[in-house]
């Protein structure tokens, strides 16, 4: 039941997932570059950046447009994900399960030398799920609080006006949290981690090597293998064989 380690790659991400990840990079960077200087407007560096981006009005315009696009992408992403799950087009591999929590505990025990082996992960490990759900919930917080700040009059007509300054601190703090998580967690997981250094290319090419798949997502790999009753020629399924239809989620 084992393929050759060097037998090739497996298609891991759909084109839709690759596009979403690329769009997310552009929008996230645009929002950070135009947003963080507004969080600390009296820093010399912020003022330099704002001046060189065309002034505060241009910066705010870009920020709002990027934010609206981010909101649209978030809504479309959730709609596609929910729709796909309801129509059973793909498996709910990104949903949190009890195993994710036990995996996290076992993984930390392994890091500390208290467990013999790391947990065996499925299609997404708990670290990737953490980042995915952080992005979904953080994105929702940013979109809602951003819209409150964009349309303060409309909001104040139906809800207490104190929500507007509250939305401002929420937006500002949640942005910092997202930035720090991406800086620490994503930059490590996808770039600085010695196992993928300098750069994990699978979300750009859509492919992952069989070797890495077997090492990082052993349960997914095993599920992919044809059952003994179905095949007469074991080992031929691996190269270039598409995985089960991938979910729309980017890999964290």
């Amino acid at each position, binding site marked *: 039941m084992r393929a050759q380690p060097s037998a090739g790659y497996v298609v891991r991400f759909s084109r839709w997932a690759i596009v979403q990840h690329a769009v997310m990079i552009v929008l996230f960077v645009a929002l950070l570059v135009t947003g963080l200087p*507004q969080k600390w*407007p*009296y820093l010399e560096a912020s*003022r330099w950046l*704002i001046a060189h981006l065309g*002034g*505060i*009005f241009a910066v705010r315009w870009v920020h709002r447009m990027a934010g609206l696009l981010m909101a649209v992408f978030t809504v479309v992403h959730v709609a596609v994900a929910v729709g796909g799950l309801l129509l059973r087009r793909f498996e709910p591999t990104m949903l949190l399960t009890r195993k994710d929590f036990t995996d996290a505990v076992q993984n*930390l025990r*392994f*890091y*500390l030398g208290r467990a013999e082996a790391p947990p065996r992960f499925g299609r997404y490990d708990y670290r990737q799920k953490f980042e995915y759900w952080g992005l979904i919930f953080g994105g929702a917080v940013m979109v809602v609080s951003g819209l409150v700040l964009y349309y*303060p*009059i409309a909001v*104040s*007509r139906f809800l*207490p*006006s*104190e*929500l*507007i*300054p*509250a939305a*401002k*601190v*929420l937006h500002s*703090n*949640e942005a*910092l*949290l997202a930035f*720090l*998580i991406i800086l*620490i*967690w994503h930059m*490590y997981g996808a770039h600085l*981690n*010695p*196992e993928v250094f300098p750069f994990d290319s699978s979300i750009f090419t859509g492919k992952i090597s069989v070797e890495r798949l077997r090492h990082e997502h052993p349960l997914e790999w095993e599920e992919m293998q044809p059952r003994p009753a179905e095949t007469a020629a074991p080992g031929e399924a691996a190269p270039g064989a598409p995985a089960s239809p991938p979910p729309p989620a980017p890999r964290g």
Partner: protein
Amino acid sequence: MSVLEGGAMSPRQLSAAGPPGWRPSLFRALIVSTLLGRAIPAVAQEDPSSACFDCHADSSLTLALDDGSEMPLFVDSGALAGSVHEGQLVCTDCHQGYDGDHPSGKTFASRRAFVATAAGVCKECHFETYTLNLGSVHFEALERGAEDVPTCSDCHGAHDIHDPHQKQAMMSGSCARCHRDVFDRYSQSVHGKALVEEGNDDVPACADCHTAHRVERPRSASFRFGSPEACVRCHGDAELMAGYGLSTDVAASYLADFHGVTASLARGGHLEGTDRQVVVVCADCHGVHDIGSPKAISAEQMKARVAGVCARCHQGAGTDFPAAWLSHYRPSLRHAPLVFLVNLAYKVFIPFMVLGLGLQVVLHLYRVAIRR
């Protein structure tokens, strides 16, 4: 009268250890004197001004001007005494060119024409101040040909010039003479009352906000966006405000707010060419010349006033909309509890996440390292 002509300087002026601004012009005068081949007169034995008073002490002495009016030429012999120029200038330092054929029979078009010409003499020594004035709204009007534009002596006086940094001195003679209505409003304000009635020097007088010489057009975008700076200069000064029991949070809270950030960043004219007012500044809520103490009116009145200000730009803003502004308070459980709690939650949550994720990264690196 050739006030600009580089005449001989008085020996007193040469020996005077005046303020620093004097030295370049003294130097220039020396060079001019040398180039013209004029010897610097020896130290006079008697007061060179005394000859002037032979005639100008006569209170009936006048000069017929071209416009038909008469200009009094009487000068109080004690006029310079007590002025900033006492002991430093004599008559001919300013009134140059009257030596030989005096009185020459020359006259001026009008009193204003004489005053405007006479102003040229001040820049001989106060050149920096003169250049500041070139950018002012007053100079702009002068260039357009307006006559009633203040020149040096209109604000500072001619013979009786006092230290312009004394607020009382500055207020009494200068701006109010032309801007009477503004001054009347100002003198009813919390600042004006303190200055006019109590002689309080802490409060701003005209020039503290408008500046003295480079008086900017007050409705320009750059003056408007820059105006909070004038307020913050005092209201951000903890030591000064402590004396009046006022909080310096007013400055910090305004600058931390969306509008304060806009005002501070939009300076430099990003709005030039538009008449859009995208930002609210201190004066929009508190008033300009008629600033009153916010404590003098009720919270309800204040809220209604702020609501009116909001509605000027935010069409459809209701009476509750001012609650979107934290009223210069720092968020606390009493004022804006929701804002306070959201902030507090993140103050705990962000370090918790950063430390947790950082720890896991470090542990992973440790695992990778010992496996090798």
